[in-house]
């Protein structure tokens, strides 16, 4: 008998997809895989943790608070906000070589650079060199959009306005004489910041672009005169300005101020006495803030970071412990006591 295959118009397609029979891998994990897996992951984490911890331990850090809260602090005199152009000197000594390259940071705490209304108070168009926004800064910059005379503020906004303006000079005391430790301020900001995000307008000389504008209220010098020593380091691409403009994530932060990479100090700071001269301008005491300076060398993982290594160790050990628990559970389950 010839059986003709009847034609079905409505017959669904018989494909793996429509019939939900796609070839698939169904991992059938068993205790034999899961428990060793856990142990392995745990061990890997412990391994990473140890590496991180050791690396972190090898990083030398020297942190000095110079807020001047304590009476015996050399900067105590400057903590009075009425004192202008105050300078103070921070002396310290190194017992052994502080290996280079040494990074020099300033740190602020209890300082909310991540406050939203603070963060948005800037004009990215202006900062990328758009002259139209020199005349009329963006609304975002309020209340630092125009000054009391209704002149546009450039750079506008509260981030720029609050730029950190303490300056530091480090001297090594060699036989009683001060020897300046050269700071390298180049390239401390991000490349994209001074090439893309922040651009000076194409006006020569730069100061002409700022005609009809005023400097931010807290600033002592206009933007085009931030670094008298290096004409290229002025305006919006000033490295210190850029570093400041890159907001910190959390209220306790440090920002790179200089690197010590030159001359006698390329290999690091030799043991000896040092004196850090600070031009104390930036007020933090009003909100219980702290200012500090940090000397640190770096490893492959950046600055000292003990938390990460310890966290890895903790989580790794937890995994191992967990696998032990699982093993016990498994044993109990598989070989019940009454057997």
């Amino acid at each position, binding site marked *: 008998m010839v059986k003709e295959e*009847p034609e079905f*118009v409505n*017959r*669904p*397609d*018989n494909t793996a997809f*429509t*019939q939900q029979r796609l*070839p698939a*891998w*169904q*991992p*059938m*994990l*068993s*205790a034999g895989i899961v*428990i060793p897996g*856990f142990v392995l*992951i745990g061990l890997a984490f412990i391994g*990473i943790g140890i590496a*991180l911890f050791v690396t972190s331990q090898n990083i030398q850090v020297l942190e000095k608070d110079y807020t001047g809260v304590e009476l015996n602090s050399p900067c105590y005199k400057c903590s009075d906000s009425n004192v202008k152009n105050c300078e103070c000197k921070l002396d310290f000594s190194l017992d052994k070589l502080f290996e280079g390259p040494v990074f020099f*940071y300033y*740190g602020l705490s209890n300082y*909310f650079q*991540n*406050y*939203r*209304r603070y963060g948005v108070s800037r004009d*990215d168009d202006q900062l*990328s060199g758009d002259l139209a926004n020199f005349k009329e800064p963006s609304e975002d910059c309020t*209340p630092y959009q125009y000054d009391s005379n209704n002149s546009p503020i450039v750079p506008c906004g*509260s981030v720029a306005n*609050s730029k950190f303006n303490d300056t530091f000079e480090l001297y090594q005391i060699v036989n009683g004489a001060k020897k300046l430790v050269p700071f390298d301020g180049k390239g401390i900001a*991000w490349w*994209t*910041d001074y090439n*893309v*995000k922040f651009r000076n307008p194409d006006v020569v000389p730069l100061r002409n672009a700022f005609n009809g504008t005023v400097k931010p209220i807290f600033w002592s010098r206009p933007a085009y005169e931030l670094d008298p020593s290096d004409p290229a380091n002025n305006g919006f691409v000033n490295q210190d300005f850029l570093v400041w403009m*890159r*907001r*910190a*994530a*959390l*209220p*306790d*932060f*440090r920002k790179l101020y200089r690197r010590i990479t030159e001359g006698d100090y390329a290999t690091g700071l030799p043991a000896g006495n040092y004196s850090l001269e600070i031009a104390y301008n930036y007020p933090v005491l*009003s*909100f219980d803030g702290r200012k500090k300076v940090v000397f640190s060398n770096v490893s*492959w*993982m*950046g600055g000292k*970071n003990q*938390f*990460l290594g310890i*966290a890895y160790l903790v989580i790794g050990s937890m*995994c191992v412990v967990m696998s032990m628990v*699982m093993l016990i*559970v498994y044993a109990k*389950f598989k070989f019940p006591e009454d057997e």
Partner: protein
Amino acid sequence: MAKEDVESGLTWEVRANSRHYHKHKQKRSFLCFRWGRYVDNVVRSYKYSPLTFLPLTLFEQFQRAANIYYLLMVVMQCIPAISSIPWYTNTIPLLIVLSVRGLKDLANDLARRRSDSQINSRPCDVLISQSFSTAQWKDLCVGDVLRIHKDQIIPADVLLLCSSEPHSLCYVETADIDGETNLKYRQALAATHDELTSEPSEESLAAFDGVVLCEEPNNRLYSFRGQLHWRGQSLLLDNEHILLRGTVLRNTEIAYGMAIYTGADSKILRNSGKLRVKTTQTEKILNRAVIVIVLFLLIAALLLAIGCGVFASAVLTRIEVLSALLVDGNSIYTAFLTFWGYVILLSPAMPMSLYISFDVVHMVHSLFIGWDIEMHWEQTDCPAQARNTSLNEELGQVGYLLSDKTGTLTQNRLLFRQCCIAGEIYGDASISAEETEPMDLSWNPFSCGGLFMSAPRLVERLREQQCPDSRQFFTALALCHTVMAEWRKEAPVYQAASPDEEALVGAARELGWVFLSRRRECITVSELGVTRQYQLLALLDFTSKRRRMSVLVREPEGRLKLYSKGADIVILERLQRDCPYQESTESALELFAQACLRTLCVAVRSVPEVLWEQWSKTLAHSATMTTCDRDILLEELYDVMERDLQLLGVTAIEDRLQDGIPETIAMLRQAGLKVWVLTGDKKETAVNIGYSCKLLDPDTRLLEWQELRQILQSPDPGVSFFKARQTELWAVDRETAGEKTAVVLTGPELAEFAERPEWATTFMGLARHCQSVLCCRVTPGQKADIVTLVRKHTSSVTMAIGDGANDVNMIKTAHIGVGLAGVEGGQAVQNADFSLAQFRFLQRLLLVHGRWSYHRIAFFLRYYLYKTCGFALVHIWFGFFNGFSAQSLYENWFIALYTTFYTALPVQCMAIFEQDVRAEGSLRWPELYKVGQRQELFNPLVLSATLMYAVYTSLVLFFIPLGVFYNSALDYQTMAVTVGMAAVFSANIEVVLLTRYWTKFNIAAVCVSVLMYFICTRITHSPRLFQNSPADYFFPGVSDKAFVDPVVWLTALLTAWTAVLPSFTVYALNIILTSHDKHKVHSTSHQPVVLKSTKFNRGNSARRSSYAVSQGHGTGRLITSATSIRSTAPPVDEKVTTSKDLTDSQGQIHIKENNNGPSYEKLNGTSKQMNHDR
């Protein structure tokens, strides 16, 4: 007179042939105003019109709490003062959600419009100015005179005026309305019959000017009250004069009628209930979860805003550089704005993409149902279809299946499968009808197939004329019935009111006893080619009370014989004493009952001439009496005659079930579903079907109303129920007591529940323990009431399945309605959420698709809420470290893309492809289905655990990077990328853990998502985009730096791993603890569900003898009064030829019989042994 009518409630006035009168009063509506009285005959099941679509759909959609919330978000984001993330992150998704939903609703509505117009444009003949012209249903108007042809569906509730049949009789099939399979007759008033049948009918019908006064439109299917005022006469009308919309005219060439109720006023549409918007349990829980989450977010935002105010006044004022930022120098106003800022910032915890993805998943699941080749029925080329695409997961949670019987469980085909004559059983019902070896009936010229019984031995005996009992048996079958024979193509075509009778007469025909024709007083039968005329003296008709019928005939030889057939109990108690074969016949009855066959006993009595004379006199006398007295007298008279019967045998008819019914029901019961049968058919049939489809076990005891009533009335129904059951079953165990009990109720009894709500509660309490509940004689409205009852008193999901218009209401009322496709009209399918071709496909729909959908959607929703909450709640913790300033911890683009590009694909794939157990496994272990019934995978508890886990994840996501970034030179933007990376990693690891079924799409989706994160981040961080729009892309170069920073990577890795560690642990513990079971499900080969071989308890004999005649009177009255008898006698010359053929073929058979000799002996032997064994 009019006043009287008002008092009697007959206020609905319909004038024949006066269109203008009714048109004038037609019901119209504009917006919400309605006026007029008579509706047109148009079915409108659609919701929208072009004008109302937009407002209505928006109104419906904004009833969802989530949509309102999103709208609020969108509005707020347009306010610059509080906008913490840009406007497009919420507006575009909201527009997509609204338009997708709207379009889906529109498409559904258009489909409804199409099906409506299909029904509305069906043709019918309407009398317009003296002639019938074809019109469409929708043009029909109250008072119109219609012509209805044979096999046409009646377009409105119509008063029968006259028909082409004698006495204006006509037959209708009401299976679509009440599920009864037998034909019902309707008869026109004598007055209209006499006046209107004169030829040409058009003229007289056009002149018809009667006025009908009747009840207002109502939903009572079985009653009608009215009067016809015509030519000064007032004639009473009742249900017998009415043809209901949706019934089909049968066995009647033409019927003329006048439309009384049209369209929405017709009884069936009044019964069809309202279209409701169905939402699933899961969606309800989700909605509650949404509200809880939104409230939580608002409270969190409020607390954060308070924090902001405190911070602003306590700290901010002291920071010179920040104090100027206080809005208007007012910290309270700042806090107020911050509140809204946080509301917006936290809103991604409840993303709209959840609803979009949810809809997509639903849609794909629905497509899968339609694509399933195993739910495609080749016979009608009909695939399954999900008409409502948002109920899929509920298919995995069904607790109660409420099924129609006729057409759903049964095929509506009755087959003569076995018989027992003189104590000997012929045929074997254990072999399915299709596999039965066809007998050689070529000797019988009248044979036209349709006998699924193999009993060569019986044929031999019949033809050898050696067994007078078997001959008598078939003579009885050929004589004792109310079937009409119609001659078509030289063969009698039987038209029976009951399919049982048709099967019996048909079987007799196949075996040589051919009922040829019937005249008022004689029946012509061809017995093995010999034509004999029996004089029909009396027909003692069937009623549901008598449960038997008899004919009294005079044989051609002159002897008087009474042939009876009826339910076994009734016949057996009327047998003469010491009737031979009684014992063996009774055991045969049990055997048949075991095979779930419907049995009828056949008996004969030789009536002495004296008795007949006496009897007929009394009968004649009774005709003069009043109806009431006559009925009593007739009862007695019949009783006198139907005595001292001699048992001939038993017929066994199989009410053909749909394919695979017992297996499906057994599987569904194993899966923990309660299957209830709701039918308009009578009790006996329903119970019989209950047993045959394995819904009831042979030892299941039926609890009927009397007993149930006592239990319900008792002070402590639960206790008395179990007591009653336990004593009866000797069962100590409570559970088995319930499991072995089924409740049988009928419509009127159910009506009592409406009066006593407390009974309904107790009843449901009992029904939960029972194996099943059978509801018989219920109207469509009552079917829906039962569904409502179950919905009200249990938390289970109900599913209603049916095929006819009578099931529409319950299909609409149940959580899920399933319509069986294939029946003409397809009303059930139109209103159903899912349509199937066969009942047995339910197992796949529920156990495979439903279970998968439930699993997939439960995991999908849980995961979705986890990933979005885990990611968004980070902002709460970050608030503590940024002065509660509503600072976002992520880049805007990351927020916008996280839920869609970076994490949506894998979960989408999981929700589409996931299979915890393959289809075969799902069917092999129906018990797995119980997970859904108990809502184990998606309930408030599980959901809150998920949300707690999300909170944990958000804590980890924030605090580990916090530890790393605290007091470091790393900036905010790097931290944003780090936390974002960790969030993407943890979300993707989590979905990897959830996925158990890795197709290539899943693998690709995970890879693509993670890659997408890196690619999109690089793109949105690209300097070029920044140059184009600094405000939108203000992260230039961040990822370049961050992605090469080992600290970022190590932090993200640690964070992600810590975030998913609990879930990993649970996963691992799960594997360790359940590995044995899992392996079993996946690897062991298990026997497929086998029907338990039913052991028959001799003690609780459950013989089921029944007969599918309606509850009311049979049609015997019509036959004896000869109202419906047409001349159907076959032409004489043909008869001669047929008998010639017969003799020829007889000769041939003789040769054959010799060959069959030994086997016959053997068969006989085994059968005897069988009888003996039992």
